[in-house]
């Protein structure tokens, strides 16, 4: 899933000064799972804004809503009326949802409420961690199912750097394991250490973010 965390209230609140009718719109997918922008968070943020307004003597109507996904146009239909009526919308979706909302409702002011973080998994309730960097050229076959791009802080392809110590990464030795240690341990477990002797050429990053905005076109499924 795409993970995100909420921005500091102050940052969100700065944006909406002077707005008369505000809609806080949640997203019912990834960000609900990672507890950042689902219906519960919408309720909390909306209440917070209303309370802050009262404290500051501002009058602003704050409406609340949550749709299935903000990354598919059709789902906006159910919230269309609310969005139209609002002067501005705070989207509690990931960066994708915020932009899609803005695209769909031209002329509507849209603000993000979240900082979108990474593609991650739930380690346990309240703990999420990154697994994929979306490089566009999956190499997990060669590394026993552990990604050097996403799990090594430097995205090194041919073994660890000198900053790997006691299994931990120098970038954050307290919490971040060295990706290459994980790869090594796993390959050893699988009895495939010899696979690691293969030298990987410099990565062509153009298949991912460095190649510019990504786009997938599937003629076979296009209507």
């Amino acid at each position, binding site marked *: 899933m795409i993970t995100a965390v909420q921005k500091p209230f102050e940052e969100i609140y700065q944006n909406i000064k002077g707005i008369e009718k505000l809609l806080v719109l949640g997203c019912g997918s990834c960000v609900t*799972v990672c507890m950042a922008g689902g219906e*519960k968070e919408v309720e909390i943020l909306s209440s917070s804004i209303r309370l802050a307004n009262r404290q500051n003597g501002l009058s602003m109507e704050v409406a609340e809503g949550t749709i299935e996904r903000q990354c598919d146009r059709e789902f906006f239909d159910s919230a269309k009326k609310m969005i139209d009526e609002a002067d501005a919308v705070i989207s509690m979706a990931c960066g994708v949802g915020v932009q899609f909302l803005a695209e769909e409702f031209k002329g509507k002011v849209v603000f993000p409420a979240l900082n979108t973080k990474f593609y991650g998994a739930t380690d346990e309730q309240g703990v999420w961690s990154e697994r994929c960097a979306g490089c566009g050229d999956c190499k997990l076959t060669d590394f026993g199912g552990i990604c050097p791009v996403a799990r090594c802080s430097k995205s090194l392809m041919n073994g660890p750097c000198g900053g790997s110590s006691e299994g931990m990464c120098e970038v954050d030795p307290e919490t971040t394991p060295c990706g290459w240690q994980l790869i090594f341990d796993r390959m050893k477990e699988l009895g495939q250490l010899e696979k690691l002797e293969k030298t990987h050429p410099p990565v062509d990053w153009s298949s991912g973010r460095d190649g510019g905005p990504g786009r997938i076109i599937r003629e076979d499924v296009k209507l």
Partner: protein
Amino acid sequence: MSKFLIVGAGISGISAAEILARKGHYVEIIESTGAIGGKVNGYACKATDSCSRCGVCIANTSLAGAIRNSRIRTRTSATINKVINNHSLDVWIEQKNPQIDYSKCSFCDSCVNSCPVGCITKTTRGEFTQYIFDHEKCLLHKGKACSQCLENCPSGAVEINGAVSDMKISAAAALIAIGHENYDARNKVRLGYGRLENVFTGSDVEEILSHQDYLYRSGEDVAFIQCVGSRDPEAGRNFCSSVCCSYALRLARVLKYRNKDTKITIYYIDIQNFDKTFTAFRNELEGMGIDFVRGIPFSVERGRTGKLKVLVPDGGAVSSAEHDALVLSTGIAPARNSDRIADLFHLDSDESGFLSSPEKNIFVTGTCSKPLSILDSMTAAGEAVRFISGCGYGEAEIPEITPHETAFEVRDIPLRRDVLVIGAGPAGICTASALKLMGYPVTLIDKNNIKPEEDLAGVDFITGSELVSLDGSVGNFIADIKTPRGIMNFNFGVIVAATGTENNGNTVSKKGNIVSLDRLGEAVSARKRRREASAVAIVLDLEIDETRASTETALKTALEIQERERYQVFIFCKDMRVASPELERLYQSSRDSGVTIIKYSGRLSVEDDGSGVIIEFDDPYLNRRVVVQCIIAGISPGGIPQKADPALMKLLGITGDCYGQIQENNVHLFPAGTNRPGVFALGSCRGEHFGPQILLDAGAAARSIDELIAPGIIKVELSNVVVDQDKCILCLTCIRSCPSRAMIINSEKGCAQSIAEVCQKCGICVGECPAKAIVLPGYEDTKILESADDAGNY
């Protein structure tokens, strides 16, 4: 269906009555005082921000439930005048009126309000409410014909039949549960009780702390003196009262919590281990700054400064200290009229005044039989019931759903009566046998190929077997068991874990001079005889506090080795755990036979130097580090934390405590319940190692299981949480956070769902769900937010 008589409406009598009534029997309880509940009525909740498991809240809940039961009739202010126990048991009693039949009472207070002289007091403690009459004031007892309380009672719960009425009660059997009196601290004249101000007893402090934050003034200096009238052969009381360390430490913690400036000292002989996470508890107290001083003061006087000056034996000398207030931790002594009851019912009384019954239809339980805590009294009462009513003791009642809740549909969910018991140690075997006797089909499995000595006829015993997967829920578990014949599939209504602990065996040295305590006897025998006397060490309390179980093993081993030629046994311990009469005797005889007990403080180190063992420790008497050489040392595994099998815990879906033993240390689950309905756990895996206690817990487990499965159905009110299919996104939060494992995924509907018979309706999942997809009926947000002073604006 029979009628039983119970004498004494303390927690013991009431607990027994509740079980009897649940099994369909009728119970008459005779209580000599005007109040129901016994000593527990005067006890404070001993929680700070965290519970200390004193059991007082549980007792009150139990009292509240029992008195409302229509099969239980409690007669207060009643005296037994005559007992004839020939062919049947006939008892003549005399009771003071008015009486209240609580099964009819609606607790509306009309009686209190209508009494012209205000002789009725209402007391409420948690769920438990009762009305107490002051007969001194009551007009009825002044010869007037007043019956205002009766006339004004809207539910016909008040009964009056003259000021005093006589009646004869015939019963199938009687249970004597007359409890105890506190040891009279006045007997210890030098300790100043009743002579000096600000000298209190434990029960005074219980009472005071129920309504006040301090004893005498805020920021006072309080000292607790343990073992007042316990472990005191001179007073003819050579036994540990077993409740005083627990109440004193808990009360001390409460005092310190309520005011950090309160200074607290505890004078003691040995602190008893009374809780499965006791070491953590004691560390907490020490961390709060509570002082533990070994040695019992022998004299208290008012010092020149006006404070209480205590003299304490200190090594060979005497030291003195001053305190503002003293708490004498008095022990358990016979009930006031214990002799009379013993005469009436032909009971036996031991040298300390504890009662037992030689008669077939008279039973004794509670603190009149031996020292017991509240929770242990409740368990013991259950065990007594088992003897009273025979084992297949009647039909269980199907729990009634109270009328105000029937806004919801009530459904009968059938459940299986088959029970799986995992682990064939004493805990598992006792539970299995008890259930078998009650008539349930029992499967007992053990991963080892063991052959139990007990007769397990009728129990399906499969050795070399393990549970490998578990599905379903209470009443309908589906288990895969790996047996020597391959994987077999079974269905069970209930599962009991009695799997003991994983032996972590890290107590043994390579050079062979340090062995595990259970192998010490053999290891000593295997040695060549030496000319000179050799010292053998037994080391207790190495990392955590020992329990009664390992203390018993240590003492028995010590005695056995000491009695051989030329051996001197030293037992190194922090405290001797003797909270059971047989242990105190064992302790006495091992000292008599020459075993030396050395009490250390802080950390002790044991080194194997190849030729023997070197033990180093801080001696609190000599106030320096001491080194002792022995030929061999036995280390008690009880002094090292032992974990339950984590894989099994996961499989069963049950949680653990801070030591990795089964189940959080939560009183609501005592003694054998777990977070998951239908799963029970007891014995060492739960942290209880002491044989006699395990037997009691096994009985309690069997009774809880019986209560659950006897009706063959579970009556479930369908007020469990409801998941909105459209909103649920299967994030698993509810499944992870449900304490009782009531949430599952309905794959057809593609959403989470609660299992009605498991859901406890706590609403924790509602509080967690990030999509706000779950609703607890009756607790919708709009309903919660409704306010009496809503001006229609919201």
